[in-house]
């Protein structure tokens, strides 16, 4: 009986333990249901990544034109201010008429002086040409005379040389005959030989003198030819000099150009005079700058700048450089302001001075927006179709490595449980909502965690609160 009581006591203890364990089982299950992260999942979907780019900008003038007039004329009055709208033909400023007249007279006088200078130049040129022609004719005549004279002298000298040559030949023959006769009396007495010897000697002397004469005639001929060549060369040069082209002188051409300019100036000044010194707007627009003042002289640059109504307006907005890759020149953007919506192509894209933003310009159709109006620009670009895309909230970053968490069923002590499994991914393209991923390692029906009520890391147990597939 004592044993029974003893056993009952401990068995009651065992019962209490089991009851406590049951209680804590319930509590721990309840705690677990609270602490296990509830997550939303999504399966990878095929979609195009859309990039919506928007920017705020203003309608600005597309082109500016300048108002020019003749320089150095006193301005009597300026009738417009910067920012003022003017129509075609409106008077912008009035010039001093007296000063204008003075300018006109100066220009006309200047033109007359140049014309007279040109006339004088023409006359001088004609006289000079006449003198040149005469000199050339004379030189040619002199040339022919010299040639003729020298030819005659040379012929005479050649005849004298020929004659001296023949005399020499005769002298040589006589000497030979005398020597032959002397040889024939070689055996005779000296008395008989003496006259013959004297004759030989005499013939020798005669021949020597003849040869000297021949040499002299030859020298004379050579001298004559040399002189004739020199004179011929001199006469030839005289002809060339007489026929040489006179030096180029473009003074009259330059004066003609100056006269043309002066004529142009005179026409403008005449027009100004005719218009009583009034400067008018050539087109309608808004004066953007007044560059002269009353009492000042007009400039050789613009005296007014103004917009041109004919050129229309343009939109200029700024986007972040990172968005620039999704836009290109020619893309059509939607422009909207105050309920007014139009589409226009992008005309240009360029970095601003600080290289912080990209300036986007689009030409605005006529009569759509007004100058200075604030306009919203929007553009939606679609990428190629990616087979595996997920909401951006599914992408986690761990020191630059991107990964996603897939919900997978795992056999645990508590039975089949959903567990987060880490899959490293490579993001191909993304926008503010979705990212396209390389599909390696991601199954089509994988449940990817897109949102969690509390922090989830790889290996954590999770509970799915949504099985919706996007």
């Amino acid at each position: 009986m004592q044993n029974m009581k003893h056993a009952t006591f401990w068995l009651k203890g065992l019962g209490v333990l089991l009851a406590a364990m049951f209680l804590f089982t319930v509590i721990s299950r309840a705690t677990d249901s609270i602490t296990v992260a509830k997550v939303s999942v999504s399966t990878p979907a095929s979609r195009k990544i859309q990039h919506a780019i928007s920017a705020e900008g203003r309608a600005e003038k597309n082109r500016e034109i300048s108002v020019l007039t003749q320089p150095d004329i006193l301005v009597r009055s300026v009738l417009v201010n910067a920012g003022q709208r003017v129509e075609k033909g409106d008077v912008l400023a009035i010039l001093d008429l007296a000063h204008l007249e003075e300018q006109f007279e100066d220009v006309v006088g200047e033109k007359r002086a140049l014309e007279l200078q040109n006339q004088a130049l023409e006359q001088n040129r004609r006289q000079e040409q006449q003198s040149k022609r005469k000199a050339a004719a004379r030189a040619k005549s002199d040339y022919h005379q010299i040639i003729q004279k020298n030819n005659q002298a040379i012929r005479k000298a050649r005849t004298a040389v020929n004659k001296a040559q023949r005399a020499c030949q005769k002298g040589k023959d006589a000497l030979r005959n005398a020597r032959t006769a002397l040889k024939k009396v070689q055996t005779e007495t000296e008395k008989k030989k003496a006259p013959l010897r004297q004759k030989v000697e005499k013939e020798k002397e005669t021949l020597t003198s003849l040869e000297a004469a021949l040499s002299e005639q030859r020298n004379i001929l050579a001298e004559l030819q040399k002189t004739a060549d020199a004179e011929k060369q001199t006469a030839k040069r005289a002809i060339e000099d007489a026929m040489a082209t006179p030096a180029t002188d473009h003074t009259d051409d330059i004066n003609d150009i100056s006269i043309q300019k002066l004529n142009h100036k005179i026409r403008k000044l005449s027009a100004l005079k005719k218009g009583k010194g009034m400067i008018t707007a050539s087109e309608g627009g808004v004066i953007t700058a007044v560059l002269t003042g009353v009492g000042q002289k007009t400039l050789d640059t613009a005296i007014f700048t103004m917009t041109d109504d004919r050129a229309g307006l343009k939109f200029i907005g700024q986007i972040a450089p990172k968005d620039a890759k999704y836009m290109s020149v020619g893309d059509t953007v939607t422009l909207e302001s105050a309920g007014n919506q139009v589409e226009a192509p992008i005309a240009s894209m360029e970095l601003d001075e600080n290289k912080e933003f990209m300036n986007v310009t689009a030409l605005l159709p006529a009569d759509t927006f007004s100058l200075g109006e604030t306009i919203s620009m929007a553009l939606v670009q679609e990428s190629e179709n990616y087979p595996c895309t997920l909401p951006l909230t599914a992408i986690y970053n761990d020191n630059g490595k991107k990964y996603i968490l897939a919900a997978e069923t795992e056999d645990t002590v508590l039975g089949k449980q959903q567990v987060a499994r880490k899959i490293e991914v490579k993001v191909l393209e993304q926008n503010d909502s979705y990212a396209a991923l390389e599909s390696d390692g991601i199954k089509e029906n994988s449940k990817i965690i897109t949102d969690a009520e509390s922090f989830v890391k790889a290996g954590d147990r999770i509970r799915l609160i949504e099985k919706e597939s996007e």
Partner: protein
Amino acid sequence: MKRAISIIILALFALLGISPIIFLAAGAFMGNQEIMDAIGPVLQTHHGNASWKLLPKFPTMKNLVQLLLDTPEFFQMFWNSVKITGGILAGQFLFGTPAAWGLARYSFRGKKVIYLIYITMMMMPFQVTMLSEYLVLDQMHLLDTSASIILPGIFSTFSVFIIYRFFCGIPEEILEAARIDGAGELQIFFRIGIPLGAAGIISALVLSFLECWNMIEQPMTFLATKSLWPLSLFLPKVDSSNAGVSLCASLIALLPAVLVFLAGQDYFEQGIASSAVKE
């Protein structure tokens, strides 16, 4: 004097015997850092020598609270253990007790052979019978179910052997008197056999409880589904993040075994004593 020395020596041995429980009780209320500082060298996470304190330096209930309120796995495994152990004990009582009664009280051909087989089977460790058990359970499509642990446990020969020894101790004269008084065999078994052999039955069940509660090899071999695992497989790997919870879990896992042992302790001692007297 001799008695005092004997008591001191026995006390020292007793202290040595319960030192794991002291280790558990102290560690269950230590912080993880304190535990790792003490046993880190054993786990090769710290240098130096392992040490232990009887009292925690900074006592905390954090581990106990975490185990009881934030660890549903522990309770799942606890109830798995209760299911397996309860099933085995009920089965052993249902089948083992009549088997032991039959072997102890009846004479039939082949009785000695059967008893010899029982003894032989009892002496075989699990590793020897594991393959054949696996093949049989596979054929019966019971693998990876709780029945794969419970069914072989029900027909354990050890409890039959223990109960057999107690039934053998019942005097034949009592049974003869009952028969003369007109009692049938079932009446004799239920009215005389079980009450008189209660000590043996309880002893066998207490021993079986301790064996089943600490079963490790059978669940690891036959159970692949983690949700069926018993408490003996809870937190097989101890590290700095779960050391305190592990010690708490071990301490709580110890409680049912202690309570069952204490509940059956008197019957256990009585049974052993009567058996010894009989022998």
